């Protein structure tokens, strides 16, 4: 892979946050990569995601990221005002992003069957996640950062959400970096998997090396037993 293709690069990045420390993290992401970060709670997944989001500075190492307006974020909870409806959001949100695309947003709203007239407070968790995704995918983001977006979703909506992410990455040669606890998600859409433990990366491999969820789970058990 040509170096010019690399959009996200972390070289030996370390970050101390109170008693927690992220140690010498190396990460390279190229266009069309979908990277799944897994690990126990407190392993450092969210800290890593916040560094990638420009929200946390680093103590040492090198980091290369696109500017913030070229990144799309989907949080694990809704950040849009619950009293508002999609119709109202459509009116003001174009002014918040540099490269907002009204038509794309409208297409995603239709495709994901999100009701336009209802207030967000009346949405199910799945609907709220879909809305977050529609916002993140509607401003030509080169990098998508997804924080446990499928947790708590029913299997049908989870499939729908993962398919939309995968299609976007393929269509726009973008990158998606997602944290998850679900190995099924990793097998379904990711091409690389990173396993974190106590602030370090203990596994960084291509998902193609695993046939299914069981073989990935077995590998994880081996690593944990080895530790």
């Amino acid at each position, binding site marked *: 892979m040509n170096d010019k293709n690399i959009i996200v690069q972390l070289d030996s990045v370390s970050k101390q946050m109170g008693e927690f420390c992220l140690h010498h993290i190396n990460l390279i992401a190229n266009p069309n990569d979908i990277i799944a970060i897994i690990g126990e709670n407190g392993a450092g997944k969210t800290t890593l995601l916040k560094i990638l*989001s420009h929200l946390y500075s680093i103590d040492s190492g090198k980091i290369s990221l696109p500017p913030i307006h070229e990144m799309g974020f989907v*949080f694990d909870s809704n950040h849009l005002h619950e*009293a*508002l409806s999609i119709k109202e959001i459509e*009116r*003001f*949100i174009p002014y918040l992003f540099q490269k907002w695309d009204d038509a794309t947003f409208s297409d995603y709203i239709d495709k994901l069957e999100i009701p336009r007239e209802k207030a967000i407070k009346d949405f199910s968790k799945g609907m709220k996640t879909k809305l977050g995704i529609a916002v993140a995918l509607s401003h030509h983001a080169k990098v998508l950062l997804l924080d446990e977006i499928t947790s708590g979703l029913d299997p049908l909506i989870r499939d729908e959400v993962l398919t939309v992410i995968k299609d976007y990455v393929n269509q726009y040669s973008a990158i998606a970096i997602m944290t998850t606890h679900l190995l099924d998600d990793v097998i379904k859409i990711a091409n690389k998997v990173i396993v974190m433990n106590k602030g370090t990366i203990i596994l960084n491999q291509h998902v193609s090396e695993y046939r299914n969820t069981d073989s990935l789970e077995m590998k994880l058990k081996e690593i944990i037993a080895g530790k």
Partner: protein
Amino acid sequence: MFGLFLKDLFLLKKHWLKTKYIFILFVFLLIAVLVLKENSLIVSVFIAMLFLNSIQVLFAEDMKTGWPEFLNTTGLPVGKIVFARFLASILISLLSTAISFVINLLLYFFFDSWSFKEMSTILLIIFLVSLLYLFILLPFIYLFDTNGITIAIILLFIAAFLLSKVNNITTNIANFINDLATVNIVMVSFLGLLFIGCISYGISIIIYTNRFAKKL
């Protein structure tokens, strides 16, 4: 910036344009007119002041949803984010004044106890005082969230009390105002308001940056 202002506008509309609020306002006003008669002007001032505190609703809604974290992902400059909220506060002051105007107009037709000039002066004072109130309040709400109003009011009372203890200060202020021509009073008020607005805006930017937009 315009997007944020528009968002605040939608939230205010959702919050206030409710049948129960309009009904309560109407009943309250009716009782005031029946009981207080020509003195019910005070009610219009009270309602306007009550409406001013809806600025707090905007902050509460933002905090409830983690809106500042979302804004950090848009790359919008802090100056624009805070300015949008200042625009919303100017709009709230204008709306407060407009509510007072409508109520005063009704009272004017019913009782005819005020001249139009007196009414205009009162409305101008309501607008300036409400704007001043919000400009002082905004940095406190940015710093203390919904407790900001309480803390700001307590501090304002303490400041007023301490000022009253300074020798001849009230007499000096009264003399200064008496010496000014009417047109100069208006000009001094606007300039003072602009000055306080700028200071408040600067402090709010510093607080917002440190609380919500600082890279950890």
